[in-house]
């Protein structure tokens, strides 16, 4: 392997990590601003112009907070849990393409870290690991609220992951490939949100459930579980959980944009390659906005209804979607 390739990969990885960190920072500000506007407020505007330094202030505050470990907690697991939560959220980015390729100094640089031929499988596999962090956090805290939050989280993820996985099969069947780059290239004519509208809706709903966002934020329901699985966490460990939550928000938006909204491509027009990350970013931003918008609109589901909705509606619906898509594909030849 040539050394330049390794340097290229390292640079790309650093960029991905930076996106994760900065995305978390400004994800919080974005969410607070949008929520405030929806609630006819102004939102954070004290730290810096229009509050742009608010995330920095929050970060500094969290760094200086006391790192509390409960006396009865399982210390190793307690410390490991936030790391296990944050890592999958970061490494998912490896397969998501944010552009095709650009030429810098006579060298073709592909704007993605890895074009794995089982990209979609990788997504679902890595996304499921995150639930371990949450369950371990809930268990090791030795706190009834945290434990209930962790248990709810695992039950919810198990229920919704099936429908999530099945909703991804639509785009895979239409493309005939599991590589995310192939899927994006196949959407140059028409975005998969049109032929796979049902799958798109199912993906958004189950995606919200997968990342524990409102209205599926059962594992951290403030009113019932105080904070759920991270009730005992403080300081930077808490910050890691928040980071994981926001990175997962961004990742879910990125996956939805890649699989259903044409990724870094615009329909019908060819754009220069260096603009492709920008297009991708705008699509992610719109999806992030909708996630916050949904949070501002809908109240939390009741737990039994959440389960009923997952098993009795979403799962059959996604199965039917796969079935119908397959039949149409076979009939078209």
């Amino acid at each position, binding site marked *: 392997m040539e050394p330049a390739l390794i340097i290229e990969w390292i640079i790309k990885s650093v960029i991905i990590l930076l996106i994760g960190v900065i995305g978390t920072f400004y994800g919080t500000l974005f969410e607070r601003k949008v929520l405030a506007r929806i*609630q006819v407020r102004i939102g954070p505007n004290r730290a810096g112009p229009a509050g742009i330094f608010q995330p920095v202030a929050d970060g500094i505050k969290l760094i200086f907070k006391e790192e509390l470990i409960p006396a009865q907690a399982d210390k190793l697991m307690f410390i490991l849990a936030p790391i296990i939560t944050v890592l999958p959220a970061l490494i998912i980015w490896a397969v998501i393409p944010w552009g095709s390729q650009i030429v810098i100094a006579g060298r073709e640089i592909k704007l993605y870290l890895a074009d794995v031929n089982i990209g979609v499988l990788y997504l679902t596999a890595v996304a499921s690991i995150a639930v371990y962090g949450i369950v371990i956090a809930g268990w090791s805290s030795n706190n009834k609220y945290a434990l209930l939050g962790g248990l709810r989280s695992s039950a919810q993820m198990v229920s919704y992951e099936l429908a999530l996985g099945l909703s991804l099969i639509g785009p895979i069947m239409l493309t005939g490939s599991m590589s995310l780059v192939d899927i994006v290239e196949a959407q140059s004519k028409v975005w998969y949100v049109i032929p796979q509208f049902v799958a798109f809706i199912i993906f958004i709903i189950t995606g919200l459930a997968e990342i524990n966002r409102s209205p599926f934020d059962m594992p951290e329901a403030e009113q019932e579980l105080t904070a759920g699985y991270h009730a005992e966490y403080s300081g930077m460990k808490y910050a890691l959980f928040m980071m994981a939550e926001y990175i997962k928000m961004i990742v879910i938006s990125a996956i939805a944009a890649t699989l259903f909204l044409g990724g870094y491509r615009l329909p019908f027009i060819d754009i220069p390659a260096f603009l492709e990350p920008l297009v991708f970013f705008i699509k992610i931003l719109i999806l992030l906005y909708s996630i916050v918008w949904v949070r501002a609109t809908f109240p939390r589901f009741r737990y039994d209804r959440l389960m009923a909705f997952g098993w009795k509606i979403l799962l059959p619906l996604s199965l039917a979607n796969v079935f119908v898509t397959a039949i149409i594909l076979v009939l078209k030849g």
Partner: protein
Amino acid sequence: MAFPERANAHELIKGLWITFKSMFEKPVTIQYPEVKRPVKARFRGRHVLNRYENGLEKCIGCALCAAACPANAIFVEASENTDDERYAPGERYASTYEINLLRCIYCGFCEDSCPTEAITLEDNYELSFDSRFGAIYTKERLLVPVPENGKPTPQAVQPGIFTRSVPVMADPVD
């Protein structure tokens, strides 16, 4: 099937539309330290001790406010006025006047009981103390500044002018 009982897609979209519309409304936030909302006319904020136009204090040290105070927050000690050192019209003035704002419940009974309208609850609500002693407002902190045409107390005055403690007052308008 029981789920969802009443929610349907139409209702969900209606809800989303309402929240989307509200994004474009003018924020109701008042930027507090910079912008202050005016208080209502009968707002009961921190007390002040008023003065007459000539600078004499209205308080005559009768301690009716202290008697009326349900929280025992007011302490008044009266002393004699002389024409050489006149603080208030009439015989006596409050040589000590203290309100413990940690005890005060801002009921306004002191204001109601005052025969000379000396103590009034004004619109200052920005009260914060860094010690318990800081919460005790003494006469110096409660007295309003001397008006433009007045002189500071104690004043040396001609004998026989300020013999009446309680002034002739019109009915209150507010």
